């Protein structure tokens, strides 16, 4: 019999019940809650007179629509009344049910997928859910993490279980070594370009190969974060010493004798050498260039040295229509050079790229330089209060503000523009977030997804430029 994949192991070790129809009930160790997708779930519990199954499995923080400007006066200071009610509703729900919440001005507050691993709330070998599709991020720790809808948030609150179906296994192996200036974000954008936005649908993707083995935990989180942009609900990286080192000493990580016991148990969190994957994609890491998305889907991505595609080179009609529609929305011409795309705003942040290493990467590029004249605004939004504190200790905030970028309070911010940070109609933005859908960053806004280093380079150049030219 063939060995097991990491996904198989995680799934099987959480199986509560196999239903006759092929669906499975799996136990969920951790749920992370935020203000947008939880209010209706709590309301559902109340209406049905139900209590949460297990309080200590949950952790919450507001992130999607908190302001990132000065907010020391607290929730009442949120200008948008609808956002304010949503944040207050999370506060009151957590208070009512006794769920631990890092409120808006708690230093541990942050974007759910940044806060949870940072606190050690997510550990190797756990199952975790959050009402947010980028929950896949947490798979970087060797955890089985699903994004779920609000009904499932309620289901997990009430039963500590999720009804699911076993997925298929895909291995994305990136071998070799990355070039200078090529980051985890470029790797994952390139992978999405290769397999397509629906290529991973129905699969749990494990990222393997030298490139991921040599990658930091934060880099692995960036990669797993975007598994969903390739259609996969789950992204995973096997546990190794890098994982263990990352987890050690975090607030909710095991301590003392339990720590030793846990580390021992985590050793098994790798795919067996003879495990069989339903699909294997192999990529040579040395060939990956810094990436830029030109269109309105993350798969519409090319290297910075390339051109915007020409629909005339395609044969499939749905694809041709897609390219034409994207060109029109993005205000771009076929065959235009990527480096000729002028930018209006720059956004460095989001659950994909707002951790300390991301900020260091960006700071390195802007240090001693100035934001270009044509850039209306360049925002740096740290992923959590603790990331912010660390960055300030290292003086990164100063480097950013000296160069003319704005240094903000933690939250989702311009990633989805639910708070006041957004693009104007027709504006182009170099963004380190994960979605370039129409209107994602504001009505009529045009998003180009890039790495933090590439976003920083674009900020100082005013248009896209190969970051490798600036860090030579």
């Amino acid at each position, binding site marked *: 019999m063939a060995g097991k994949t990491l996904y198989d192991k995680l799934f099987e070790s959480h199986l509560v019940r196999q239903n006759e129809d092929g669906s499975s009930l799996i136990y969920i160790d951790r749920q992370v809650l935020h203000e947008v997708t939880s209010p209706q779930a709590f309301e559902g519990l109340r209406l049905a007179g139900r209590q949460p199954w297990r309080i200590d499995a949950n952790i919450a923080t507001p992130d999607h629509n908190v302001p990132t400007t000065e907010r020391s006066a607290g929730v009442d200071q949120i200008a948008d009344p609808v956002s304010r009610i949503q944040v207050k509703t999370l506060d009151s729900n957590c208070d009512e049910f006794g769920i631990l919440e890092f409120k808006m001005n708690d230093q541990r507050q942050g974007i759910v997928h940044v806060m949870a691993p940072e606190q050690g709330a997510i550990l190797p070998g756990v199952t975790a859910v959050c009402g947010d599709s980028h929950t896949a991020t947490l798979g970087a720790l060797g955890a089985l993490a699903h994004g779920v809808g609000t009904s499932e948030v309620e289901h997990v609150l009430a*039963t500590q279980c999720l009804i699911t179906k076993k997925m298929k296994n895909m291995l994305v192996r990136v071998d070799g070594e990355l070039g200078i200036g090529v980051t985890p974000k470029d790797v994952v954008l390139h992978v999405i370009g290769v397999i397509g936005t629906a290529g991973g649908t129905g699969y749990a993707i494990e990222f393997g190969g030298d490139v991921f083995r040599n990658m930091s935990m934060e880099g692995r989180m960036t990669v797993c974060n975007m598994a969903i942009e390739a*259609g996969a609900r789950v992204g995973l990286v096997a546990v190794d010493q890098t994982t263990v080192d990352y987890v050690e000493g975090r607030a909710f990580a095991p301590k003392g004798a339990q720590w030793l016991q846990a580390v021992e148990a985590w050793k098994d969190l790798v795919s067996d050498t003879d495990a069989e994957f339903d699909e294997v994609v192999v990529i040579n890491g040395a060939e990956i260039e810094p990436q830029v998305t030109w269109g309105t889907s993350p798969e519409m991505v090319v290297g910075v040295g390339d051109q915007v595609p020409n629909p005339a080179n395609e044969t499939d009609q749905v694809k041709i229509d897609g390219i034409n529609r994207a060109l029109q929305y993005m205000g771009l011409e076929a065959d235009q050079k990527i480096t000729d795309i002028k930018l209006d705003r720059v956004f460095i942040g989001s659950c994909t790229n707002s951790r300390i290493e991301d900020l260091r990467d960006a700071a390195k590029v802007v240090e001693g330089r100035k934001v270009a004249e044509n850039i209306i605004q360049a925002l740096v939004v740290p992923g959590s209060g603790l990331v912010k504190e660390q960055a300030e200790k290292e003086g990164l905030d100063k480097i950013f503000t000296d160069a003319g970028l704005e240094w903000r309070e933690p939250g989702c911010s311009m990633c989805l523009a639910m708070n006041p940070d957004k693009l104007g109609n027709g504006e182009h933005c170099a963004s380190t977030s994960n979605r370039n859908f129409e209107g994602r960053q504001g009505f009529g806004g045009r998003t180009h997804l890039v790495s933090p280093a590439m976003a920083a380079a674009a900020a100082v150049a005013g248009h896209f430029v190969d970051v490798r030219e600036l860090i030579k």
Partner: protein
Amino acid sequence: MNKFTLHTGIAAPMDRANIDTDMIIPKQFLKSIKRSGFGKNLFDELRYLDEGLPDQECTGRPLNEDFVLNKARYQGTSILLARENFGCGSSREHAPWALEDFGIRSVIAPSFAEIFYNNCFKNGLLPIVLSDETVEQLFKEVAATEGYQLTVDLERQLVVTPAGEEIAFEIDEFRKHCLLNGLDDIGLTLQHADDIRAYEDKRKQQAPWLFGAIK
């Protein structure tokens, strides 16, 4: 939860691939803490010419006359015909809430994004996967005939065209059962509470560090 058994209604063609959940319901409307009232903002950016704001009255906003659901012949649409990877993007359940609130009961496409697909069933909305060729055929038929209606028969797992052609579709037994009977998942799962407790006891032995740590 709403039941779904048999439904007949006007079908409208959304002829584009990768319709994402930001398109189905833009983020400014996610601030509501309710489950209802999203229908008027379904496909907001495609449907109206101006920028939609939360809590805004929508009658009187300038309509995009080219958008399919605004056309006279598709008024009263309850079945959407779409292309591949429908519902990709965010996990927001507001997407099926908006479709349902607008009056859509079923979406037919060659493929769906998983989270969206899942979310539909929790809200009495039936997503149906048909082959590329069949979807293409339906697109042609819808375009050719004004007032084109389809019948969706969940019990028999059939889509029936006006000409009487019966097209079979696959669906998971458990989901079908829940939808036909309007069953609440949570109630069903809690019938297995003993299994959950037994698993939990075992888990406490295996990984004690996961209990009582977060407080």
